[in-house]
């Protein structure tokens, strides 16, 4: 495929991610930290985030499923996921964490399960959109092009 077409696809895709609130300014800062000496920096940290979030979401499920729920532990785990989401610029996931934290403070187990469900949806959606973005990036590089500056 034509490199320019791929680059346009990339710009459209990432612009939509910002417009729809999936990404915030922090993601732009990550992109600016990437340079010739660290060409895979963004992919590396986002991949770490995928793994971290997957693990935390599983842990949250386990913690909420205990006979006696330790809400402090739930709170700590959600805070951890919120922290990572803030660092990556995953805005909607971060917002879902904020809601979850409020439910934890109220000790409302049913609401917490609801929050966890929503958090999983937000994260799954975010992950698939970033994976799509990275696929376009790979195609651009394979075609001999470079990522546009935005």
């Amino acid at each position, binding site marked *: 495929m034509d490199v320019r077409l791929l680059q346009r696809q990339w710009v459209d895709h990432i612009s939509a991610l910002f417009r729809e609130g999936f990404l915030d300014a922090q993601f732009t800062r990550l992109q600016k930290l990437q340079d010739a000496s660290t060409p895979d920096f963004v992919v590396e940290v986002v991949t*770490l985030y995928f793994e971290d979030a997957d693990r935390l979401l599983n842990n949250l499920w386990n913690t909420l499923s205990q006979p006696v729920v330790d809400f402090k532990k739930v709170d700590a785990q959600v805070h951890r996921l919120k922290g990572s989401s803030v660092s990556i610029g995953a805005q909607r996931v971060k917002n879902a964490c904020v809601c979850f934290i409020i439910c934890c403070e109220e000790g409302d187990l049913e609401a917490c399960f609801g929050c966890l469900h929503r958090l999983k949806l937000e994260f799954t959606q975010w992950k698939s959109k970033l994976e799509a973005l990275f696929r376009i990036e790979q195609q651009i590089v394979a075609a001999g092009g470079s990522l546009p500056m935005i």
Partner: protein
Amino acid sequence: MAVVTEAQFHVLAVDDSLIDRKLIERLLITSSFQVTTVESGSKALEFLGLHEDNQKTPSASLQHEIEVNLVITDYCMPEMTGYDLLKKIKKSSAFKDIPVVIMSSENVPSRINRCMEEGAEEFLLKPVKLSDVNRLRPRMLEGRSNEKQRLPRNIDDNDVGASCSSVAAKDSIISINGGRNSANISGSKRKAGKEEEEVGLLHERIRPRFSNNNGGGGFTVL
């Protein structure tokens, strides 16, 4: 042509989150600092050569002949918080003059005040930005000039004969990264540093200084 290079500043970054360690490392290297990252307060103390009970031990930093110019640590960490680490460093006669900066994703005024009262240099709100990191340079310049003026330290009596557990630098936990070649940077760095030093010394810290998230310094990464 001989190029006189200033020794780079070395920062010890402490965070239990791998993502945040990667980020802070990248920010610091981009700002031409050398970085060592560790995952906990106890690993930080090990690296410095300070046991948890403030006894000195053979340190990875001494083994690698590294002088730590600044410690930057996350607040919320399991077992030993950044606040606990700050207190231990400030209570230590050998390391109390190392500037310590706290990072946190939560804007809690009582937390900030507590840290500043305990001697933290700065309290940075996450996500930490390049402009935040660049503000740290004057702190390290001050620390270095203080050290040159200081008389040789006396080793505490406690240090003599203290049991020395061997401390191996564990590659999976500690990563030591060289910064960029400072040959061309040192000239401009010295100039920028001098200006910042003058500004920094003019500002008395009347109240805690901490970053907010109102945009950044507009720093351009080349």
